[in-house]
């Protein structure tokens, strides 16, 4: 859509983008504004609960729309994290994005969720200055300047984000990111359950060079050593820090909403055709028929 820019100059392309990611325990919905030269967070909801993606996502989308006084018809595009991630939760985000895109007649773009952890951008959770920024009471309200953040419900007992890792990757300021990382290669890992991780390796510019794949943490660690990786990121990396033996980035632990949109921004600005959102499953279905169909219906 074309809108009057802040300076009254016509011709500034401004697209209000809905971004959803449900590939990890962090159920995320955000509104991000894409302009000709920038990407700005408008509203954000994130709740950490590995078992309630289906319940949480739609109300969060409604909430971010309410936050900025927008209606669904104001959306110009939808960006969704394609995973990899545990299947059931992952599908919630993708089917939500696909159905909304269908009704609204707007393009949907998929981005590998691990890329949203690796991308050199300021983590969304530190972007407090953005207008309309909102974190629900249950949200992962971490901020690089606000001290250790507590993860939301459902993750009690896990390390608090930002705790004990400050200094390792310059997590002390709002500019935390890859700009200071130089050529450092990064392993991004998300929890794949079954004692495995979804992982990928990125170069210093945030370009994925290997992955995504799913393996035991020890396998990912060995590949990371071969690839001269020097730092790890993502909740899977935190969880298996002992096995990986790499310094950890504190944030983001989960796919970052602004990063996901930034990775799709060129397509959004170009008005590229949307794509069918195909999940990165990486695993075959367990090919065992339901032993009893008693839970299945007439």
């Amino acid at each position, binding site marked *: 859509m074309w809108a009057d820019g802040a300076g009254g100059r016509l011709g500034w392309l401004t697209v209000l983008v809905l971004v959803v990611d449900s590939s990890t325990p962090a159920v995320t919905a955000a509104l991000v504004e894409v302009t000709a030269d920038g990407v700005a967070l408008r509203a954000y909801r994130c709740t950490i609960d590995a078992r309630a993606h*289906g319940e*949480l996502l*739609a*109300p969060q989308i409604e909430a971010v729309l309410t936050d900025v006084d927008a209606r*669904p018809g104001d959306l110009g595009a939808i960006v969704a994290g394609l995973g990899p991630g545990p299947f059931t939760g992952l*599908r919630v985000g993708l089917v939500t994005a696909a*159905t909304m895109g269908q*009704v609204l007649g707007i393009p949907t773009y998929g981005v590998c969720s691990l890329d949203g952890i690796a991308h050199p951008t300021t983590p969304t959770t530190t972007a407090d200055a953005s207008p309309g920024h909102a974190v629900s009471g249950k949200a992962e309200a971490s901020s690089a300047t606000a001290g250790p953040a507590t993860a939301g419900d459902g993750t009690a007992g896990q390390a608090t984000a930002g705790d004990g890792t400050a200094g390792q990757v310059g997590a002390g300021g709002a500019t935390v990111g890859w700009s200071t990382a130089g050529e450092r290669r990064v392993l991004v890992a998300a929890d794949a359950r079954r004692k495995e991780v979804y992982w990928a390796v990125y170069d210093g510019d945030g370009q994925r060079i290997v992955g995504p794949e799913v393996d035991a943490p020890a396998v990912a660690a060995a590949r990371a050593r071969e690839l001269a990786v020097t730092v790890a990121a993502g909740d899977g990396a935190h969880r298996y820090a002992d096995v990986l033996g790499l310094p950890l980035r504190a944030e983001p632990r989960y796919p970052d909403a602004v990063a996901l949109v930034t990775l799709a921004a060129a397509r959004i600005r170009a008005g590229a055709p949307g794509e069918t959102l195909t999940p990165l499953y990486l695993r075959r279905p367990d090919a065992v028929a339901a032993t009893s*169909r008693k839970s299945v219906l*007439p």
Partner: protein
Amino acid sequence: MADEPLILGIETSCDETGVGIVRGHTLLADALASSVDEHARFGGVVPEVASRAHLEAIVPTMDRALREAGVTIADIDAIAVTSGPGLAGALLVGVAAAKGYALAAEKPVYGVNHLAAHVAVDTLEHGPLPAPAIAMLVSGGHSSLLLVDDLARGVTPLGATIDDAAGEAFDKVARLLGLPFPGGPYIDREARSGDPASIAFPRGLTAAKDLAAHRYDFSFSGLKTAVARWVEGRRRSGEPVPVADVAASFQEAVCDVLTGKALAACRAHGVDTLVIGGGVAANSRLRSMAEQRAQRYGIRVRVPRPGLCTDNGAMVAALGSHLVAAGVRPSRLDLPADSALPLTTVSV
């Protein structure tokens, strides 16, 4: 009729992705995508395979339904979706889809009970249900007898299978006989040329002592075992297995128990209408036997056409239409998928 609400229904509880559209009791569209072929080689529904298929099918199936009905989503008054019971991962795709449609189109959403929807679908063919009625739902996942007073408020379970579902027994016996999955239609076809009285298979939970505790319950596990033993005995002695006779005798035993108990429930509750739904309701012997027996007692049997007996979106839309007409309030956007949703909950 044009002022009756236009309701869209979404069904994904098992292996069928269904989107149906109704106006009042009038069926406008019933689009279906099935993953049944993908499950055939496993001899049963693989939940993850079903869930993946739902995600791929939902958008195109919705497109087809809207085209078939000649409406747009903006015309829809409410969206109903099966929120349970069923396969958890499969249900979740449909529930999330319904919320996506509801959110984007700014429409109310109703999470509804799959079993109640199997009852409601008959109204599309035979008009409003008299109250009370008895409903028998028989499929690969369930065998239930229900007392239906007011579909909008809840149904009263009278009995259910205590082991295998009726359709499950059909699948297992079909496998024994070397017939494909799902077994129901193949057994039905074989049985037509067989003698239903040739083998005396057991009728589960029909003895006097069982009826005391399980008057309206079903058991098909013993029957399945009896068929397996009989077939095994034949094979061991080197004799050919008379597939048609086994199929007919097995089918006769299942239908005998189902119709016997359903009609007993009608008479005990003074009910003159029996509705039969679920995939097994497509069985030709079940339909004819139910009608023959019901006639004796002046009971009317209502069975939707086979395409509406199996899982579909139209049945969900039909129930949604009933709920909207009854003034039931919509569900909240955080409505969960509930794989074990009880029968007493018609809408969430």
